């Protein structure tokens, strides 16, 4: 693949920070940067420069600009780094301006890919990629299994079979004209195609809904009654969502709040107190809690640190668990707590911001997982979208009576797209996905 484009992207994490770095890489990097800064850039020299927007009337920002000539740069190409103020608007304007001068926004992982192709990654980094591929494909398999469960998988298979059947007839009509075989007539092919296309469309709509529901991660609050789960939910969300009372077992239903925790979209679910001696009324609530625990990305187990029994309940023994010791305000002797225990007070707010960080760091992994290309749903949606487009194109070709080989080509592509869902996808794609998703060496 010829890497002739000059690409740009923010190299530091999204969101507010004191400094953001924007990276520009490619053959045009130097000339674009010089136009923007109006400065003769010296290699590997930090220039303090004013970045002007458009006609030069407005200032985007004042930034430190460093030029790394090829091959001694991160990607092995000419690279210019802009260290500007960590303001999302500044970054957005800067990227816009770079694109105006002829750069384009990088696809995720594109910098790493270029670095890889230009031999800029060392052996250990390459091995890290190899490991990622191994684990990535395992993860892909896992998420594919999740997404492929039940009906969805069956429906894709059935659509694929229909498509193959249509293709069989079309291809036979192309390869075996002399053989006196009865291939479907065009009108029948058109009808079947329309039928199949509608089925994909329906499935696509359903799958899309699924994806929206799946976006973000979920955490569930568990613990014995009256350890302060609901208070903690309120403290974390800073909203009076759940009713907080002093009577054990008040929360009978599952209550949740959608919030962002250090930038990660998260659904925090409060459960009925898990008790084994619960009355019949509470049974249902407990059952729901069990389900919520099973499906959660993180189980925040709340313990009343002021009580003598602080052993976590059997029910919530899972590797996804984060133990939180509440009611720090009532605690006098900390010696009974384990080392590094997360001690908070939902009432006073003490330790809450540290808890947020802990939750975020535990969720970070899941959060990135859910957006990986290996996240089957995103990939499947994309494949269906492309399959649909190809089928529509095939239908148009049949409509205008274009040569049959063109519709045949469109349907080949459509099948290839659906084939990606059921398991085959081209080898090079996987590597592309790896580089898009994992920023190796950054």
């Amino acid at each position, binding site marked *: *693949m*010829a890497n002739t484009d000059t690409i740009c992207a923010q190299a530091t994490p999204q969101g507010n920070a004191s400094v953001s770095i924007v990276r520009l890489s490619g053959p045009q990097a130097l000339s674009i940067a010089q136009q923007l800064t109006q400065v003769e850039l010296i290699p590997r020299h930090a220039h303090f420069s004013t970045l002007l927007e458009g006609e030069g009337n407005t200032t985007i920002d004042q930034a430190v600009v460093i030029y790394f000539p090829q091959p001694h740069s991160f990607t092995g190409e000419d690279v210019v780094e802009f260290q500007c103020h960590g303001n999302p608007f500044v970054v957005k304007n800067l990227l816009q301006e770079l694109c105006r001068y002829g750069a384009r926004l990088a696809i995720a992982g594109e910098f790493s890919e270029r670095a*890889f192709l230009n*031999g800029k990654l060392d*052996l250990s980094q*390459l*091995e890290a*990629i*190899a490991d990622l*591929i*191994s684990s*990535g*494909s395992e993860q892909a398999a896992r998420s594919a299994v999740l997404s492929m469960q039940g009906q969805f998988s069956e429906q894709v298979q059935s659509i694929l079979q229909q498509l193959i059947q249509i293709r069989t007839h079309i*291809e036979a*009509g*192309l*390869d*075996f*004209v*002399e*053989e*006196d075989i009865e291939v479907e007539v065009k009108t029948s092919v058109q009808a079947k195609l329309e039928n199949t296309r509608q089925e994909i469309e329906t499935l696509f709509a359903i799958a899309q809904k699924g994806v929206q529901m799946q976006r973000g991660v979920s955490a569930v609050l568990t613990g014995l009654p009256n350890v302060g789960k609901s208070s903690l939910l309120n403290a974390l969300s800073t909203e009076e969502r759940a009713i907080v009372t002093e009577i054990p077992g008040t929360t009978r239903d599952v209550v949740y709040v959608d919030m962002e925790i250090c930038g990660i979209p998260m659904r925090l679910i409060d459960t009925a107190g898990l008790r084994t001696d619960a009355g019949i009324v509470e049974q249902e609530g407990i059952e729901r809690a069990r389900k919520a625990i099973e499906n959660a990305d993180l189980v925040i187990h709340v313990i009343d640190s002021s009580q003598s029994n602080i052993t976590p309940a059997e029910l919530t023994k899972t590797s996804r668990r984060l133990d939180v010791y509440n009611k720090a305000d009532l605690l006098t002797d900390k010696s009974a707590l384990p080392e590094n225990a997360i001690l908070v007070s939902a009432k006073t707010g003490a330790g809450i911001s540290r808890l947020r960080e802990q939750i975020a760091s535990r969720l970070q992994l899941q959060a990135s997982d859910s957006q990986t290309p290996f996240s089957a749903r995103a990939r499947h949606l994309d494949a269906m979208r492309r399959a649909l487009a190809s089928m529509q194109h095939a239908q148009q070709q049949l409509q*205008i009576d*274009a*040569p*049959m*080989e*063109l519709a*045949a*080509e469109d349907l*080949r*592509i459509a099948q290839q797209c659906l084939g990606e869902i059921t398991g085959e*996808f*081209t*080898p*090079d*794609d*996987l*590597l592309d996905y*790896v580089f898009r998703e994992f920023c190796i060496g950054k």
Partner: protein
Amino acid sequence: MQQTFDVIIVGGGHAGTEAALAAARSGAKTLLLTQNIETIGQMSCNPAIGGIGKSHLVREIDAMGGVMARAADLAGIQFRILNRRKGPAVRATRAQTDRALYRQAIRSIVENQTNLAIFQQEVDDLIVEQERVQGVVTRMGQRVRARAVVLTVGTFLGGRIFVGGQTHQAGRAGDAASIRLADRLRELPLRVDRLKTGTPPRIDGKTIDYSKMETQPGDRPLPVFSFMGEVDQHPRQVNCHITYTNERTHQVIRDSLHESPMYSGAIQGVGPRYCPSIEDKVTRFADRDRHQIFIEPEGLNTHEVYPNGISTSLPYQVQLELVHSVAGLEQCHITRPGYAIEYDYFDPTGLHPSLQTKSLAGLFFAGQINGTTGYEEAAAQGLMAGINAAHWVKQKEAVILGREQAYTGVMIDDLVTRGTSEPYRMFTSRAEYRLVLREDNADLRLTPLARELGIVDEQRWQRFSWKRDTIADEQERLDATFIQPGQLSAERSTQLFGNVLEREYSLASLLRRPETRYRNFAELSELGPLVNDFEVIEQLEIQAKYAGYMQRQQADIEKTKRMQETVIPSEFDYASVKGLSNEVLQKLSAIRPHTVSQAARISGVTPAAVSLLVVHLKARGQMRKRA
């Protein structure tokens, strides 16, 4: 006869003659050894060249200076274009050929080729020294030395003919099988298996009542096969005829199935599913009340005809009864009984993409020995094996055509990567880049490469260059010539271009419209001067109308190019790649793919495994680009 050559070709069939000619054109001193000089260029099966997928191969051979298309032009007695309306990529030329004329044409070209000697002598053994082939030993005990040997022995290796319960060893009806050579090859570490094919009985045309059959004339204007061919090279043209089997035919077959060697279990070899015997057709498609039979003339100077569609190995008496049940054949006389032939082939995954065997350096295989069927498939392999044998001797790099470059590349890649369990025949649906690999652009795809290799003559190069340049010049002119809104009446504009032009358009953009033909530009003299070469116009129109599809296929091609260019060193140790599953490891070690993209096409090799391979090659600094 001198006793040392650069390249020896064993076999004078379609693979052998193309191999011998290509090796000689490549500058190698070449010897063609055949059992029988009279059968050089013999068409053992049906008397036709081309057809869908196959004609693409013929044009590719032609584009690289091969002979099949030229011989077909000299011997073709009925020409047809198949799939005319289904698009240029699947459009295919087919020629009914006079067997004798075809043989003569091939023989004459072979005899006149410099660097090429012919000798009639059966080969019994190979000379192997220092784990390399060094020549052959003939039936007379002659030792002829050469650094490369190309075996193109067709169905002659361990060939066994079946007619009903009778069986005998033979390479083709009337010719001996190569038994000793087969035994010798079976000693090499090559995986041998059996395939079968069949022929129908031949019939005396004087005893046929053609009035009961449909007539199938050839196309007018007369098509031409070779890029260098002319219509006036064609001999007199004749018609084919079509008739059908019927319920009575099927009953005859069903009643005698137990006498068919295929059903009695005498034949172990696997036959082609797309070219079944009439026994197979009747059994597997029991609901069909008739099957088509093409009555193909064998030549202008013979009455013999080839009833294509009823290949059979039933006993002769049943064959008689069978043909007599067919309309028009009631009184016919069988001149030669049909037969099935079972023969050895070598698992083609034992070959490098150059068609050199992996187990014995200097030994090349081409044609049916690799599990293919068809003259065209054989000839295309012969061409590549001939070129590569010559290159091997001169220590030049092997010539490997890509899947995006030629059907020949698709076929060889399929064979060496995936192997085959039935006789391999070309179909257009095998080519993922079908829209790019057309009959009409075989010259544009391959002649420049052939010129670089020095295997096309000056005359062809001149003509090719003219065509290529004319296309480029005219394309440029179409891009730069504009038609203005008021230049045509609304009515004419709608007729010619589909609507009233409301702004200026380049001719190139108008040509992309489905309703616009190049000749429509003749309406306005200021849009000219137009070219009037049919082939040039054809390219301009296809390039314009298929532009979107071409771009997409081109993008796909680019995407896989990197993997294609990543060569895996031949001594590469797959076990050193951490994380490969045992199954993948075994497959890769057995097939030893030439490039990463070939590895990716091996069945069972997962994308993750390919990625691991790429990273590993890169990490060890073993990734090198092919020049």
